[in-house]
């Protein structure tokens, strides 16, 4: 089962690489996504997932992230054929193959219970996404790809050093040196403290770079700004969730080692810093795709802040992983449509999106309202739960800063979004001849439907999965 989950997308990627027709190839992406979705459904229903002496296995936290990635990928994949049909000028062989390979590698990250293997899989996600960023083959996308590769590689190298430190922390105490997650959690109380602390910091910096936490977020505005909307949604929802899962694994080892207080302090600090940096850069942002990148930095900050606070906020953060990822899907895909229609992503040129593209424009506005925490969107519930947790833990200063930063982001992001959707479109904008088509609108509507659903009602199986994952994380077992 574990093998199938990884092999099926890889086989689909190989098929995409071999398929001769540019026109039919994009349909392999939703096909692979659908097969993966069905397999994940079986895995969640109870088919055991275990392979390679425990190197691959599925715990509650992995289940949550894997299920989310599968849904996100399927919806983005359904958008892909419509999008690529509009971009018939560009060959899509590498693009389709890399999308599917990226799915396989993200799955591998969620299944890895060996920290070395997880590191290899994270590295592989970097490499499979680089060609996706370079899809447009122009100087700007080249620059974005270069920065992404260089900064991510440095982050990944630091994560490797952190993994070595962690391995040494057990070796130093004369224990069997191991990087198997389950063994490390068992051995955690005996690990050497200074090495464990240093390892956690390095791993947070390393995987935090992939997640896009400030101050290692500098690749993010460039990469998200230049990537096709579809790739932006997958990066902001999928790859960052994988990196977050990696950080959670090391957090769990810290919890098991009774060093949670140390890890929590750092996570709260990094979370608030990311939110602050994002808020500062979002005010007066003229490029609406870069604005979305900073919004992603902000929400990554909220995620680690929630974990750092603990208690109820842990549940909130895990729920926020889903609600934020789905809302990013709405925003990136609708922003992609608007970008296509106007041929620009600057608010100087883009006006009156709601008239020019009634559906995409309205969804962009709806996505903005949801992501900034307006009810009844899903992020409202998750952010409220996190706030509840912060106050429950008696951290009133953190709660105040959290609310203040959310307010600043709401105003800053609102100014940009309203400039895009309101007003009358220029004649130049009408000239591109682009209009909303069902293929590129229906997946966004489904995303928005899920966001609203999570705001109003969390299905019982999902809620029990979230509770299980939160318990797994906090209990260290």
């Amino acid at each position, binding site marked *: 089962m574990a093998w199938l989950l990884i092999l099926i997308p890889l086989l689909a990627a190989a098929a995409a690489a071999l398929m001769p027709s540019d026109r039919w190839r994009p349909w392999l992406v939703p096909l692979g996504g659908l097969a993966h979705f069905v397999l994940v459904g079986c895995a969640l229903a109870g088919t055991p997932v275990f392979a390679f002496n425990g190197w691959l296995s599925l715990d509650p936290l992995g289940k949550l992230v894997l299920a989310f990635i599968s849904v996100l990928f399927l919806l983005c994949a359904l958008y892909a054929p419509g999008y690529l049909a509009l971009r018939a000028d560009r060959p899509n062989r590498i693009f389709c193959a890399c999308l599917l390979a990226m799915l396989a590698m993200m799955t591998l990250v969620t299944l890895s219970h060996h920290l*070395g293997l997880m590191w290899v899989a994270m590295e592989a996600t970097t490499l499979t996404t680089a060609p996706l960023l370079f899809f447009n083959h122009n100087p700007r996308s*080249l620059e*974005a790809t270069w920065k992404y590769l260089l900064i991510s*590689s440095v982050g990944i*190298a630091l994560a490797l050093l952190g993994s*070595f430190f962690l391995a*040494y922390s057990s070796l*130093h105490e*004369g224990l069997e040196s191991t*990087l198997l997650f389950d063994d490390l959690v068992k051995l955690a109380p005996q690990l050497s403290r200074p090495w464990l602390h240093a390892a956690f910091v390095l791993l947070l910096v390393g995987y935090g770079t992939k997640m896009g936490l400030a101050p290692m977020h500098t690749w993010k505005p460039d990469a998200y700004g230049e990537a096709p909307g579809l790739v932006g949604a997958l990066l902001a929802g999928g790859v960052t969730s994988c990196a977050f899962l990696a950080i959670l694994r090391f957090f769990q080892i810290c919890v098991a080692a009774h060093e949670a207080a140390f890890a929590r302090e750092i996570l709260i600090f990094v979370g608030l810093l990311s939110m602050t940096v994002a808020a500062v850069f979002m005010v007066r942002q003229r490029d609406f795709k870069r604005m979305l990148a900073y919004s992603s930095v902000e929400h990554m900050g909220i995620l680690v802040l929630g974990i750092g606070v603990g208690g109820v906020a842990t549940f909130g953060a895990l729920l926020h992983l889903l609600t934020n990822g789905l809302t990013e899907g709405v925003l990136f895909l609708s922003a992609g449509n608007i970008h296509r229609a106007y041929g620009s992503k600057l608010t100087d040129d883009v006006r009156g999106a709601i008239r020019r593209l009634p559906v995409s424009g309205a969804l962009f506005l709806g996505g903005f309202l949801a992501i900034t925490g307006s009810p009844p969107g899903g992020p409202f519930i998750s952010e409220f739960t996190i706030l509840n947790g912060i106050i429950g833990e008696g951290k009133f200063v953190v709660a105040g800063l959290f609310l203040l930063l959310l307010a600043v982001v709401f105003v800053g992001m609102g100014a940009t979004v309203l400039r895009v959707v309101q007003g009358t479109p220029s004649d130049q904008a009408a000239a591109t001849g682009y209009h909303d088509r069902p293929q590129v609108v229906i997946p966004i509507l489904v995303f928005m439907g899920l966001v609203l659903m999570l705001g109003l009602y969390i299905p019982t199986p999902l809620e029990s999965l979230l509770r299980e994952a939160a318990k797994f994380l906090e209990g260290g077992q």
Partner: protein
Amino acid sequence: MHQLLDPILVAVLLLNFVALGASQLRTVIHAVALQGVLLGTTIVVAHNTVTVWVIIMAGATIALKGVVIPRMLFHAIREVVIRREVEPIIGFIASLLLGGVGTALAVLFAKTLPIAHEHMGSLVVPAALSTVLTGFLILTTRVKAISQVVGYLVLENGVFIFGLLLVEAMPFLVEIGVLLDLFVAIFVMGIIVYQISQEFSTVSTRKLSALKE
């Protein structure tokens, strides 16, 4: 730990300063290539028993770090007509000073970390940390894309040096991890450097500044 290890690590540390202070790109690449060769020999030195596998790993490291990657970088310089100077953002003296401060800090920090008694007194931890810092310094203070690749290489070498502490305990992970990381990352970066030179007819990242606030 073998007694030959420390002299090699001292040479590696000295090469860090060459990489920081040299004004010609060629010299910097040569220094990093030599560093790669030295690191390949440390694999043999760090093992208590030398097997065929150890020799193969050392050979692969030397081939990759000492020959293949430097040749790729030289090829990139030749292909594109660029000025062969390094173009640092901060001066060479300042780079060297910062490198010295970084090394001193690395030694101080390494002292606070407990070392298993079989590794007592070896230079591995301070050398690893100061090489990582040197890599960072090169990455952040150089303009050319190739210099940044070199910075990444030096940083990788630092991680590699730390891996020497673990070669006995988990040889497979350390060797495969480091080599895979290096090979794939550099390979992809090589492609991108080539693309940059095609696109801008220069490999200076100063041209790569369309994307900013």
